[in-house]
């Protein structure tokens, strides 16, 4: 009983802490926006160029699939911060000294994640009713068919996301930006696979099978085309009456299995959970091993928490000499060098190796290969760019950095320039090749890409105070735009048609706007302290 009480309070405290944050309102606002996109027909579900009449069953199904397809991806990033918060606030260390077990902790955190995700689902369920009225095709509300897809499709999927978020946070190499990238690719790989499978976590496969049968029944035949997303309003689809999913025993069992898997993942997270013992974490061990060797050589003793305590040399009397006249003179190059070092520090040899490989590939790959090599080249440093603008808040150095003279005119431009240099250097292979081949429009688009990325990163970092916002939005943009050759979203000149259509100029304008936003954001940070 006391274990259940502890679990409940662990979940409750974490949930309340999150929902009382301003960012939670933004999250709910985004959920409302998503619901509105469905209500106004911007997001649709089509099968074989047909759609269901907007009755409760169809709207409920459509909204539930939107939840699973979009909230599963974005929601992961929303909830993947609960352990990090306990670590940062020090609450974790206090919890670690209580009798609470690791399993209880990871389960509590999973349930809290689930509660946050379900709050978003609840908003979208409410928006389903709005969508049905806005469509006006059938205004009779039938709660059963409307809510069943949320309960049967969304709850297990959200449980899985909630558990994965906790698992990622307990595995040292997945808890940071790398984990954010991994989830993105894991998810984007799962969706198309899911449509082909009959039992996928999102539920697309199940829905497709039943809808296809309904379409055959209504129109005599059906193709394999299945689309969930934004479709042009010019295209019209024939409609049929959908009375709801046939919730077979098999379906219910498969969704129940997902809940069990989510529970298993939460238990697995307990295996990796370090119980806030920093000396056990992989990253810390790596630096501490080096540290301990140096410490041992110099007569310093490691402390129990992995940090070193200074047991050593007797202090030497020293007198501080006054700084020579003229030494208080700002040099932009010194600042830039320092910012570059900060940006690149901590990267291992293989990071540079792969970056160099991509530069070489950019130099020698034929013109057609540019659409793959350039996006990859500018995906590789994403975790470095993402720290721009957010570093001061993240590491708590804002008090030191912002009390120096002209932080807006000196440090901020140097931060941006370091990011721009990183883009230029990592993309240099493609850039040089474009220049050699005399493809100046594409070279111009490439340069705009190099300007856009650090400007975007800086603005996102300054305004959000975290590196996650840039990582997630940049990945979306990168995936849909340059990688999938979507013309309007190609911000780096990887799509020849985009270059021809002058799309890079739009991105140049966006770069200027983001630059202004970044400066305004930092100005606000300086003024509001």
């Amino acid at each position, binding site marked *: 009983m006391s274990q259940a009480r502890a679990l409940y309070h662990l979940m409750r405290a974490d949930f309340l802490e999150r929902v009382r944050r301003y960012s939670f309102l933004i999250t709910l606002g985004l959920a409302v926006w998503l619901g509105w996109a469905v209500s106004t027909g911007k997001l649709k579900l089509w099968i074989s160029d047909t759609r269901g009449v907007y009755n409760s069953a169809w709207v409920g199904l459509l909204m539930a699939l939107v939840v699973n397809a979009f909230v599963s991806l974005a929601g992961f990033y929303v909830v993947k911060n609960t352990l990090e918060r306990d670590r940062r606030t020090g609450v974790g260390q206090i919890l670690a000294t209580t009798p609470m077990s690791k399993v209880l902790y990871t389960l509590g955190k999973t349930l809290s994640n689930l509660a946050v995700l379900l709050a978003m689902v609840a908003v979208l369920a409410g928006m389903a009713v709005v969508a049905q009225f806005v469509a006006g095709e059938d205004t009779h509300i039938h709660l059963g068919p409307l809510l069943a897809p949320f309960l049967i499709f969304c709850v297990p999927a959200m449980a899985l996301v909630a558990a994965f978020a906790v698992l990622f946070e307990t595995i040292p190499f997945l808890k940071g930006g790398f984990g954010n990238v991994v989830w993105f690719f894991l998810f984007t790989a799962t969706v198309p696979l899911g449509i082909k499978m009959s039992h996928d976590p999102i539920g697309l496969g199940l829905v497709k099978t039943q809808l296809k049968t309904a379409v055959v029944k209504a129109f005599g035949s059906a193709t394999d085309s299945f689309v969930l997303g934004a479709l042009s309003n010019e295209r019209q689809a024939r409609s049929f009456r959908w009375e709801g999913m046939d919730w077979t025993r098999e379906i219910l069992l498969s969704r129940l299995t997902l809940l069990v898997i989510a529970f298993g993942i939460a238990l697995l997270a307990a295996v990796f959970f370090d119980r806030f013992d920093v000396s056990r974490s992989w990253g*810390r061990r790596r*630096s*501490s091993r*080096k*540290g301990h060797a*140096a*410490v041992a050589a*110099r*007569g*310093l003793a490691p*402390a129990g928490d*992995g*940090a*070193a*305590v*200074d047991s*050593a*040399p007797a*202090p*030497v009397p*020293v007198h*501080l*000499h*006054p*700084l*020579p006249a*003229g*030494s*208080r*003179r*700002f*040099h932009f190059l*010194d*600042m830039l*060098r*320092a*910012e570059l*070092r*900060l940006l690149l*520090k*901590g990267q291992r040899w293989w990071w540079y190796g792969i970056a160099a490989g991509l530069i070489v590939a950019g130099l020698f790959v034929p013109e057609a290969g540019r659409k793959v090599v350039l996006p990859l080249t500018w995906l590789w440093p994403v975790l470095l760019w993402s720290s721009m603008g957010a*570093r001061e808040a993240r*590491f*708590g*150095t804002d*008090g*030191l*950095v*912002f*009390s*120096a*003279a*002209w*932080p807006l005119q*000196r*440090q901020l431009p*140097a931060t941006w320039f370091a990011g721009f240099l990183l883009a230029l250097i990592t993309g240099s292979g493609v850039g040089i090749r474009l220049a050699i081949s005399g493809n100046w429009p594409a070279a111009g688009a490439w340069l705009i890409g190099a300007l856009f990325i650090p400007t975007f990163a800086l603005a996102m970092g300054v305004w959000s105070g975290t590196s996650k916002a840039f990582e997630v939005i940049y990945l979306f943009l990168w995936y849909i735009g340059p990688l999938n050759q979507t013309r309007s979203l190609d911000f780096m000149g990887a799509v020849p048609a985009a270059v021809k259509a002058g799309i890079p100029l739009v991105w140049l304008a966006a770069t200027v706007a983001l630059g202004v936003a970044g400066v305004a954001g930092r100005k606000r940070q300086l*003024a509001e*302290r």
Partner: protein
Amino acid sequence: MKLTIEGVGKRYKGNFWGLREFSLELGPGVLGLLGPNGAGKSTLMRILATITKPTEGRALWNGTDIARSPNELRSGLGYLPQDFGVYPNLNAVEFLEYMAAVKGLDAAAARRRIEELLVLVNLTEARKRPLGGFSGGMKQRIGIAQALLNDPHLLIVDEPTVGLDPEERVRFRNLLSDLGGERIVILSTHIVSDVEATATGIALIDQGRLLACAAPEELLRRVEGKVWEWVIPSAELPAAREKWKISNAIRRGDGVHARVVSERPPVADAKSVPPSLEDAYLAVLEGSRESRLGMAA
């Protein structure tokens, strides 16, 4: 070199005033800011460090309003906040080089200065280790080093001795005393002994207001002949605490030596003893609170 604070106040959300009608004029020397938790010490320091803007009043550095033109002060400002972070992947030298660049120091001068500072804060042996592996005390010493990087004219240190071992604490106190000769040093702490050892002037703050600002000798004079000590049996200590505001109670072989600050001797056999700065601090604090209660009544 002059720092003038004129009627400075800071209002936070919820109409809470962290600082109110605060005025002071400072020249070279070490000013110790003393006050209980939440008194407004850190708010004042953040205003003087140009991090927070005052809601009312102004602070002038050599006649220039620091809220309107902060950069004149910032080029010669050293600031050690109460809570600060470091970049965990950088080592001590790299971090100080970064801070030197941010503060606009010439690279060659910065290198020499960093070497001196690392010796000064006793971190030469750990100079190449990532800061992420530093203990709290070592991190605090890096904070002290960065505050001194630009040979500041105004040095503001908020609870600087937190996390330092006794030896380092003594060293730091001595350093502050040395530095105070030719610049303005503002030291905020609730550790009276830190102030006792370094300050040439003391400002007592409570509930956002300046209660007193004077040289330590002057503060001690105010309670001269008002500090009493007497011996009571251990068992009677709780009752004595109910009756008098005992500022200190030390158990010795003959019983508990109780100490109070009072106009009159608490008991007939109480002996007048030389006052400490802690007595003066408590007396001023107590006096101010009583007068506020009196006014409220």
